[in-house]
């Protein structure tokens, strides 16, 4: 199976964020970046499918130069080669604009399967994979925990709401977006990290792909959420705060 895994580099989960001077995005200069979590699960699923059935895993990512570190991490974990769409204006493109970049590149590879995470941890649109399927003219499934190869294609385990699941059969080629938690992520080995340095990492400037970059929706500004409730902040040592809270739960909330 030839599998493309589309991954995104996002700010590290616990990184402190602040709004930039223009008020349109977060200040990126001091941020640490990491592989988007559900994309990491998509990569893991691809590596497991390759180990079982053979084939090739190609990592695909769009973004500025710094994205290369996340791509190298994916290669160190076992991906065979990578394509980096060099693009400094990712913030200005919407989900359709990004999917167009990925689709133009994926198409030329003729993959059997395209995997990606269900949503990014920064923008959280949760749409890139589904739009990619539409642009490639392929069937898709979303929120998938596990993929099994069958004689006629694949069978996937889909997560539904409130603890329900469903199995779906798809022909290949197909696009699948992975939910986190369905598989256990591996660490890169020292040997893997060494090998990654010699693996092919092809860079394609976004402009060469000739796709429309005019967004249909615009992020005008970002802001801190307004408080929905008047929160009483309780201060003091752990012991004092606990005693104050218990008193309030008794007299104000009447649950004790």
């Amino acid at each position, binding site marked *: 199976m030839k599998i493309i895994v589309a991954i995104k580099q996002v*700010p590290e989960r616990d990184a402190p*964020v602040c*709004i930039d001077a223009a008020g349109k995005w977060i200040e990126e200069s001091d941020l640490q970046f990491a592989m988007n979590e559900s994309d990491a699960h998509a990569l893991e699923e691809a590596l497991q499918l390759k180990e079982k059935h053979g084939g090739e895993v190609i990592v695909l990512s769009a973004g500025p130069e710094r994205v290369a570190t996340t791509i190298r991490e994916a290669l160190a974990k076992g991906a065979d080669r990578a394509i980096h769409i060099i693009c400094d204006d990712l913030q200005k493109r919407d*989900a*359709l604009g990004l*999917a167009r970049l990925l689709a133009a590149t994926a198409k030329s590879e003729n993959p059997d399967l395209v995997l990606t995470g*269900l949503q990014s941890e*920064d*923008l*959280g*649109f*949760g*749409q890139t994979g*589904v*739009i990619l399927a*539409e642009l490639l003219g392929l*069937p*898709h*499934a979303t*929120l998938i925990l596990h993929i099994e190869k069958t004689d006629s294609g694949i069978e996937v385990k889909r*997560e*539904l*709401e409130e*603890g329900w*699941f*469903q*199995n*779906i*059969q*798809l022909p290949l080629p197909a696009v699948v977006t992975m*939910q986190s*938690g369905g598989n256990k992520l591996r660490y890169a080995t020292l040997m893997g990290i060494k090998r990654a340095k010699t693996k092919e990492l092809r860079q394609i400037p976004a402009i060469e792909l000739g796709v429309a970059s005019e*967004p*249909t*929706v*615009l*992020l*005008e*500004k*970002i802001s*801190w*959420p*307004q*408080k*929905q*409730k008047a*929160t*009483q902040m*309780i201060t003091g040592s*752990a*012991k004092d*705060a*606990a005693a104050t*809270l*218990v008193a*309030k*739960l008794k007299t104000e*909330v009447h*649950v*004790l």
Partner: protein
Amino acid sequence: MSGILVVAEQRAGRISRISWEALAAAHRLGDARTVTAVVLGAETETPAAELAAKISGKVLRVEHGLLTPYTADGYIIALQQVIEREEPACVIFPHTYQVRDYAPALAARFAQVLISDVIAISEDRVFIRPLMQGRLNGSYRKSSSGICFVSVQAGAFPAETVIAGAATVELFAPVMDAAQLRTRPGEPYRAAAQTVDLGSAQIIVGVGRGIKSQENLPIVQELAAALGGEVAASRPICDAGWLPMEFQVGSSGHTVAPKLYIAAGISGAIQHLVGMKGSQCIVAINKDPDAPIFEIADYGIVGDLMEVVPALTAAVKEARQ
């Protein structure tokens, strides 16, 4: 182009609460009489009647044998025909797992992007949605002509405001055939027998990433026991296998509304908040003062849960003596 389409969904044979919320969002965007509620399926008479009694515009029954069970292909084909027929200015969806599965592709078919997960709409059609796992809000505006596709987050718009009714009901049969449906969905199933009943618990202690390791879980279990409540968890705890999936609260787990919900070490990603924000009283304990959980908390303690939770357990025990 005018009018607003709202795609309604059913749950357990009734129009789901979030569908009414999507209708409330539509009323915010335009005249209620220009709102058309759409319901899809093999049989749509009952849900259409339920909708017609509460809205003043139109209900469109989109009926075809191939629309039950749900497939993305089927819904995209049918709704593309509905949109071409109705020519709406705006299409609003409830932000459910099903919508996330097909609406982005449907919008792309019209060269548009779905503005997903919207939590508020301001007067001049600016759509607010969470960014960075709920730590920030983003204000989005459409920058091109064409249909505006929007999905609304659970609990963001007041379902109770959708009351006035006697809509006209129309039937529409989309043209589609079985060969166009490329995926074969199986019957939904539940993983394992449920041993914990979070739905009826009066007090819940929710635990998140802040607990750091599985070995630390007893400290929250002891607090829950002292309070006579249950332990629940955010997704990462269940993903890591530290607690079974049935303990999970949030969009992929349980929705709970106890008298008291104590969130310990839970930062408050939107996926968790939708599962517990209906709780009568929310206490947040987190070391990050900017954690979004504090925005919906009634009481907040900024501190290390490893210190605060045991102190709280001791204080509860003392109070109960």
